[in-house]
Structures are given as structure tokens and as C-alpha cells.
């Protein structure tokens, strides 16, 4: 049974190569996108942290800024 699944009548190398390439592409794209997200979020938090009290207060009036600061990692 296991041999049948692995060898696939001699086509195993082609089938497994196709599925592996697809899954590796998915994993790479997912982690690259996640890293970009975390990098941008970190930059936002540090920029917001360096604002003076008055500017930070003004910044917090925008709902999206509050959302970004509270969502430390949504994924």
C-alpha cells in the first residue's frame, strides 16, 4: 500500500515533485508575507512609541491605529 502511494506506477517522482513544489511555494509565500507584516507592525509600534504625548493622543483618535497597536500578531 505504502509502496503503491510512493511509487505510483513509476510516476511517483513526477507526482511528488509537483506536490512538493506547490507546498514549498505555499510555505515560502506564507512566511515571507508574515515576516513583512510583522516587520511593518514593529516599525509602526516603535514609531508610535516615539511620538510625544500630544501626537500620540491625536494618533489614538484614529480607530485603525488603535487596531494596529492592539493586534500585536493576528496570524
Amino acid at each position, binding site marked *: 500500500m505504502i509502496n503503491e*502511494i510512493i511509487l*505510483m*506506477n*513509476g*510516476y*511517483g517522482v*513526477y*507526482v511528488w*515533485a*509537483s*506536490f512538493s*513544489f*506547490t507546498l514549498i*511555494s*505555499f510555505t515560502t*509565500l*506564507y512566511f515571507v*508575507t*508574515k515576516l*513583512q*507584516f510583522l516587520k*511593518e*507592525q514593529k*516599525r*509602526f509600534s516603535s*514609531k*508610535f512609541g516615539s*511620538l510625544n504625548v500630544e*501626537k500620540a493622543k*491625536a*494618533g489614538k483618535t*484614529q*480607530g*485603525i*491605529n488603535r*487596531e*494596529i497597536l492592539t*493586534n500585536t500578531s*493576528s*496570524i
Partner: protein
Amino acid sequence: MFKYFEPNKIFAITSKAPKYVLFLFIVILSIGLTEALILSPQDYKQSDAVRIMYVHVPAAWISLGIFSVLALLSVGSFVFKNKNFALIAKSLAPSGFVFNIIALVTGSIWGKPTWGTWWAWDARITSMLILALFYGMYLLAWRIYENKEQVIKVTSLIAIFGVINVPIIKFSVDWWNTLHQPASIDILSTNTAIHPSMLIPLGIMTAAFALFSLLIFLMKYNTELIKVKNKGLDRL
């Protein structure tokens, strides 16, 4: 109507959705892989090589679908002058490009046991390669141009010109003599050349791939919104 496309309102949803989409994607992909690799039958002609169809076909469909949406959004950003359309299009493009590459690579791997060659300058394959070049130009333009107005114009033009290639890809197998087989599924009619035992896994894998592109879109869109807000902090 476009007040619903405001980043503030969208972010509240898009920041919470990825974890649920990821969970659903993993569940559906697991079912799809079991069906595609173990439960679905062999083809009477291609034997087990037919299983490559379960990654090749959904990837091709989704890359074509995403590019068509890019073109629609580009027209929308021209007509309605809504920058959020461009942001949505920018966030969709990376997964479309990756699906395009997957379709080309898995098609090439499938070509070896069925046609005896890794590559042929056949109408369908060449037009898919041209689509990959359009995706490449689109993504590159976002990196090259600094001016926001300019980059939206350039990327929109690339998407609008590139979409001409989409019907060429679709009908290439009917218009020219190609190595590639004609379409087996016609979504406009109930006629299909594929048996349900293969059609169901194909549908499940397509759903899984669509969920993955939604997941990447949401993550990328959130990143883009934070980038915009980062620039906004400088102006405070």
C-alpha cells in the same frame, strides 16, 4: 457606497480574519491531498501521472482569476479614483504570481511523462509564460516607482494590457493546434469530460488554493494598510 472600502472599516475585519482562513485552509487542504494522492482513481491512459492535475489546474485557474480581478480593480481605480482599489490589487498580485509559477512548473513536470518533454513553445504554455511576465512587470513596477500617483497609473496599465492575454490563454487550445489538451470543464454548461471521482478532489483542491490566496491577500493587505499608517504618523 465606497465608504465601505475605507481602510479603517476594512482593517477591523481583515486583521481578525487570517487565523480563521488559515485554519479552514489547512482542513480543506488535508482533505484535498488525501483525495488527490490516495483516494482518487488512476487515469486509464495517464495512470497516476494524472494526479498532477490536482495542483496544476487549480493553480492555473486561480492565477488567471486573480489577474482578471487585478484588471477590474485597475479600471475601478482609474474610473472612481479610489486608491484603495490599487491597494487591494497590489495585495492580490503576489499570490497570483506564485500560482502562475506553480502552474508553469507543475505543467512542465506533467509534460515529461505525457508528452516526453519538459517544455514546448505551444500556444497555451507560451501564453501562460507571458502572463507570468505581466505579473512580474506588475510586481516590479510597485517596487521601482516611488511616486504613488505614477505607480498606480503604470500598474493599472500593465494589468489592463495584460488582461488581453487571459482570453488568449483560455481559447488557445481551440484556436491553435497545441500539445495541451482542450478544456475538460465548461463552467457555463453542465458538460464535463471528467468523472465525478476526479472532479470532486479537483473541486476540493481548488477551494483550498482559493482559501490560500485569500489568506495571503489578507496578510498582504494588512501589511499595506500599516505601511500607509506608518507614513501617516510622520505627518502627525
